[in-house]
């Protein structure tokens, strides 16, 4: 029998905007779409003290499981925003992966987690759970007005605001905002409204995705088949989600009849052939899809900012869609909040485009490489791919070339104009632009994690000696001093940051490194802080 999961239904409520006079319908930020991007954006902006209205045309979370793999950096962001705990509790982690070619196992690997991080390398969790937990979190917040069954029908960007028309069960109303976040997905209406075009590559290979619940124990492992006897010429992926639900992803080729493939009488023999007829299972959800890899040339269109799939889409191999989206939202939220609060110039928003174009390009590159390996596009590509798989059975070097999707890694914003380039030598990889690695620490004798102390404001992470008073009184800067404010409980911090005697890191509100020095200098910190807020962009412009 199926797992019995029922999606929650969220009630439509008439909002004050629908009754109010024209003057009260203006908001600082309106977010269109309550998927992972839109919900995360609302929570991140709430944490910055910014009010948002979230409009969604539906009254529930996503159907089917869609995104299922959430990587460490994404979990760290959600943890900072107070929503990771239920995800970790519900999510599952696999460590053993097996790769098969034709009728035999080629090799298996074990992803031993690196110690000294609060978050695991990734969890598998159905997107509907993620969305539900994000909605639950919003219920605890005061600055998010989440409106279900509010379908945006028209978006009109103007010089001084964006006007939005909305259709509800009670009829139509109009509201406006200073900034609109378009989180309305791959077929974004907002994107159409501002005339933005997503460019990239369309892939014709079709995939049949089935979430099945299994009755018997089955190992918590990720299995990937290239060209198996039960599905000749194509690839198949099997991995686990919570509730004994397993994702099975069949490549069915460009010429397959998707409607036929989706019929249960055609799904059943495929899965029986894969699992063996003795394994009992039920179908939870099935869907056929093709995918596109594409992104917008500009993520910022005046007062309209694109996040998530409306901004960039990648192939599903490598779990870079939702993970990339959440990292993009984290990049945008602190900047938008400071621009709205008048603490940073509007030009700061242009670095959302610059930094996340880089992130999107990286995500596209990695997911496209995995796609090319999984679905060879020419006879020679297939010969090379199959040779890699043949050699991988015996020779370790070839295993490094097998690409059935790489774990999503966060982007380093190496060339960002917000970085103050290194002048001093450091042995650690936490260079300006990098996301901050976690490390175990203790505060007043209680164990904790470094990342729990970073974010929200800028943080000056210092390893003594005394921090000048003028730095302790700067707005938007929190001093975190090794020895005085926290202690280390392992050598992870020293190793990951090369943070010894007198060194200092300036860390952005999104937990990326802005600058670092061997010796703390108040003037240099002040200049780096101005730079990280985009103040120098304004002088150049």
């Amino acid at each position, binding site marked *: 029998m199926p797992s019995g999961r029922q999606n929650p239904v969220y009630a439509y409520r008439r909002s004050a905007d629908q009754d109010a006079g024209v003057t009260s319908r203006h908001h600082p930020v309106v977010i269109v779409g309550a998927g992972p991007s839109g919900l995360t954006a609302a929570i991140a902006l709430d944490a910055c003290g910014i009010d948002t209205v979230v409009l969604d045309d539906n009254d529930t979370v996503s159907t089917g499981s869609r995104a299922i793999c959430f990587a460490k950096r994404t979990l760290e962001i959600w943890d900072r925003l107070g929503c990771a705990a239920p995800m970790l509790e519900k999510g599952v982690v696999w460590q053993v992966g097996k790769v098969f070619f034709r009728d035999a196992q080629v090799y298996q690997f074990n992803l031993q987690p690196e110690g000294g991080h609060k978050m695991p390398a990734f969890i598998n969790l159905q997107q509907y759970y993620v969305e539900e937990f994000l909605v639950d979190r919003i219920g605890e917040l005061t600055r998010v007005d989440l409106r279900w069954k509010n379908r945006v029908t028209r978006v009109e960007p103007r010089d001084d605001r964006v006007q939005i028309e909305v259709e509800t069960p009670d009829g139509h109303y109009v509201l406006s905002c200073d900034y609109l976040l378009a989180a309305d997905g791959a077929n974004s209406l907002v994107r159409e409204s501002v005339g933005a075009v997503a460019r990239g590559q369309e892939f014709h290979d079709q995939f049949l995705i089935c979430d099945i619940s299994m009755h018997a124990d089955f190992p918590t492992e990720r299995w990937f088949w290239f060209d198996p006897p039960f599905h000749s010429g194509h690839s198949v992926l099997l991995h686990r989600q919570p509730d004994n639900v397993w994702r099975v992803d069949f490549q069915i080729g460009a010429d397959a009849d998707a409607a036929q493939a989706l019929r249960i009488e055609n799904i059943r023999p495929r899965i029986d052939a894969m699992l063996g007829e003795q394994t009992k299972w039920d179908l939870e959800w099935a869907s056929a899809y093709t995918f596109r890899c594409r992104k917008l040339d500009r993520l910022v269109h005046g007062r309209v900012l694109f996040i998530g799939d409306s901004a960039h889409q990648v192939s599903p191999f490598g779990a870079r869609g939702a993970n990339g989206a959440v990292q993009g939202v984290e990049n945008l939220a602190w900047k938008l909040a400071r621009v709205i609060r008048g603490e940073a110039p509007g030009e700061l928003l242009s670095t959302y485009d610059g930094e996340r174009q880089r992130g999107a390009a990286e995500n596209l590159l*990695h997911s496209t*490489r995995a796609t*090319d*390996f999984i679905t060879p596009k*020419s*006879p*020679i*590509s297939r010969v*090379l791919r199959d*040779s*890699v798989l*043949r*050699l991988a059975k*015996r*020779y*370790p*070097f070839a*295993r*490094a*070339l097998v*690409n059935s999707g*790489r774990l999503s890694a966060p982007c380093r914003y190496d060339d960002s104009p917000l970085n103050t380039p290194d002048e001093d030598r450091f042995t650690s990889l936490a260079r300006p632009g990098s996301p901050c690695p976690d490390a175990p620490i203790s505060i007043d004798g209680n164990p904790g994690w470094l990342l729990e102390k970073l974010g929200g404001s800028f943080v000056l992470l210092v390893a003594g000696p005394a921090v000048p008073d003028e730095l302790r009184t700067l707005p938007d800067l929190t001093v975190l001093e090794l020895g005085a404010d926290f202690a280390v409980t392992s050598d992870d911090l020293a190793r990951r940051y090369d943070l010894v005697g007198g060194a200092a890191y300036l860390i952005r509100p999104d937990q990326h490194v802005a600058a670092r020095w061997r010796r703390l200098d108040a003037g240099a910190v002040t200049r780096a802080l101005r730079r990280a807020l985009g103040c120098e962009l304004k002088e150049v412009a």
Partner: protein
Amino acid sequence: MSALNVEPNFDDADAFYSALIEAHRGLSDEQSTALNARLVLLLANHIGAESVLRDALEKARQSVDEETNT
């Protein structure tokens, strides 16, 4: 005498593989075979050591023979 290294040794395995596929883009099967032949010769010269090259030839041949027999 050095042995053939079969442990991972690429700076960036994914980048290499992608460049290899890209090098073949737009070529006919015949041209692709020619490209592979030239690549083998270039890399063999770079390696130089006869014992290493012989080891590589044996392993490659063995892998192809196994494939043919299964």
